[in-house]
């Protein structure tokens, strides 16, 4: 390629510069387009499924480059079409050469790094970022056209000196791939989401114990050091210490989850969506023409209505922690996440929107997490029960997947992610 872009082949020094410029633009554009396409594909697949695969490939590639493994690479052992230079105008062949080499798939790769970069772009699942990263690959291709010429009167001598350093370059490449593999593998633990339960939703977390509903119709309780406990024909779990509340056919049942001893019941089939902070349980009750959030003392039996909305309003699963109640309301005009202390009627709006669906809050001490759904993107937001700025814990760019319910613990948030088409759901843990 270096000996193609010479004044003699191009026709003059000026034409050589034009050809190099066109080659560069085409190489960068083609590489960026490849990155964009890979990022889009990764987005469609769901990044968390690809990250660990990319990590594994990077580690394999590192072993290959270090000479520990023999692995063939997908290759197109072809040269650029030589006849283009004689048959096509200079702007066309120089652009074509640039696009072909910038795209990467149509040329020989002595090392596996390009393919690992492709896997990384899929895992990144961010089209623009991947496009920017890959444009550097195209720029690198173009640089090899220009750099040797600036280094020596005979550019081929410069290239030969570079190839003499091949061993060092391969070792550096292997180390870089190893580092990539380790970083990708650690990414979920470094703050990315980790899936903790498949075919599950409605998580509830308290003091190290996680409870959730399964899509087969059970409630599962997982505590450290003990086998998981299953409550069949149950849904909508809520944990508080050793107690578990859930919905069954007769209303809401409250048990000691370790042995199943019933300690209380809300015998009302219109009661659902419990939240538990022992000895109080909050739940949504459907009355005639209204929906209400009621907080009841499980032992003493007294109750109080804290929220009342009309029947057409979506009143979400409440969260009850540290003497506060959080919930969401949504109509066709606005959605809100609200929080109030149990001892007061003063409710505060934590989030509201006329274009986004803010919903499914969960409380822990002075923190609150909720989901925010917009067109094509959803967020898991972390904020405070007092007026302070909130931030996005996670962002999910997708029209086919969305967040559902959440629960919050110390330094970790659990969220349900589900696929709209199939209804399949899973619970993920995010540390912060």
């Amino acid at each position: 390629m270096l000996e193609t872009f010479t004044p003699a082949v191009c026709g003059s020094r000026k034409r050589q510069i034009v050809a190099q410029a066109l080659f560069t633009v085409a190489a960068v554009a083609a590489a960026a387009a490849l990155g964009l396409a890979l990022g889009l594909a990764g987005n469609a697949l769901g990044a968390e499924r690809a990250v660990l695969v990319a990590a594994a490939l990077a580690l394999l590639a590192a072993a290959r480059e270090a000479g520990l493994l023999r692995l063939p690479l997908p290759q197109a052992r072809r040269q650029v079409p030589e006849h283009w230079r004689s048959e096509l105008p200079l702007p066309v062949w120089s652009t074509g050469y640039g696009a072909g080499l910038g795209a990467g798939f149509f040329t020989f790769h002595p090392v596996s790094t390009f393919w690992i970069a492709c896997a990384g772009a899929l895992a990144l699942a961010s089209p623009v970022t991947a496009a920017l990263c890959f444009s550097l690959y195209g720029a690198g291709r173009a640089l090899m056209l220009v750099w040797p010429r600036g280094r020596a009167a005979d550019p081929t001598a410069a290239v030969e000196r570079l190839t003499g350093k091949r061993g060092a370059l391969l070792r550096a490449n292997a180390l870089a791939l190893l580092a990539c593999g380790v970083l990708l593998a650690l990414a979920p633990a470094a703050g990315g989401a980790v899936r903790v339960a498949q075919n599950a939703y409605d998580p509830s977390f308290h003091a190290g114990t996680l409870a959730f509903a399964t899509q087969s119709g059970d409630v599962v309780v997982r505590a450290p050091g003990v086998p998981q406990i299953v409550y069949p024909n149950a849904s909508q779990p809520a944990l508080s210490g050793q107690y578990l509340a859930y919905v069954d056919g007769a209303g809401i049942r409250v048990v000691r989850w370790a042995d199943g001893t019933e300690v209380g019941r809300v015998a009302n089939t219109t009661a659902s969506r419990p939240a538990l902070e022992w000895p109080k349980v909050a739940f949504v009750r459907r009355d005639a023409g209204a929906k209400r959030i009621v907080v009841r003392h499980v032992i003493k039996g007294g109750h109080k209505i804290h929220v009342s909305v009309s029947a057409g309003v979506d009143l979400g699963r409440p969260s009850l922690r540290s003497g506060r109640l959080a919930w969401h309301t949504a109509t066709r005009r606005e959605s809100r996440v609200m929080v109030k202390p149990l001892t007061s009627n003063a409710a505060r709006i934590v989030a509201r929107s006329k274009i986004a669906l803010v919903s499914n809050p969960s409380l822990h001490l002075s923190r609150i997490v909720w989901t925010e759904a917009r067109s094509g993107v959803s967020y898991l937001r972390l904020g405070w029960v007092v007026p302070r700025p909130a931030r996005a814990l996670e962002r999910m760019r997708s029209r086919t997947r969305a967040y559902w319910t959440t629960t919050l613990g110390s330094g970790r948030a659990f969220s349900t992610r589900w696929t709209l088409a199939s209804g399949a759901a899973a619970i993920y843990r995010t540390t912060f």
Partner: protein
Amino acid sequence: MPPREQALDRSAERLASKLAESTTRKSFLGRVGAAALAVAGGSAVAAAVKPDDADAFHFCGHIWTTGSCPSPLPPLARIDRKGFPLHPSSGRPIDNLGRIVDSAGYALNGNGNRLRGPDGAVLPPALRTRVCEDWTREQKGLRDLATQGAWFRCCGGRIRKLVDCCSFSRRRINGDASLTGYCWGGRRVYCVMYYDTGLPC
């Protein structure tokens, strides 16, 4: 009167009725009034919407440079008569999350059935708010937005109503200076939307 002109007159009357009903009642064309259209007759409408598929800036009929308003499915802001979002290609109503919805506001899946959550229950109707007064207001932080001016073009054989979302802001959504367009009362065009009437032209 030749049949073609009779058809144009009927179209003009229907168009006049729709103008009177639409939210841009006080628009420039609305002020001219259905009476003016009735006097001028169908030939006036035909002249105004001569099928020349106007040079489009970023969609058919839009010959100026103001960008589209924010919407659930950008970059185009297709709306219904009341300013609520529609799917740009199918024209079906969509909610704020970009999902096709039925007449009661329930999101539909690809089979046309109401979408169900992971618990198997039908999802409640989601938000569906107006592109100018709600979307643009919240996304751009402008509190004085109002749907005002409109003009008509022939696009794809159907009359398209291009609608201005107007604000007192001197900057438009593009980031540069805004134009008066068909806004009035001191407002200027902040962003644009469009409504396909379905009337032939």
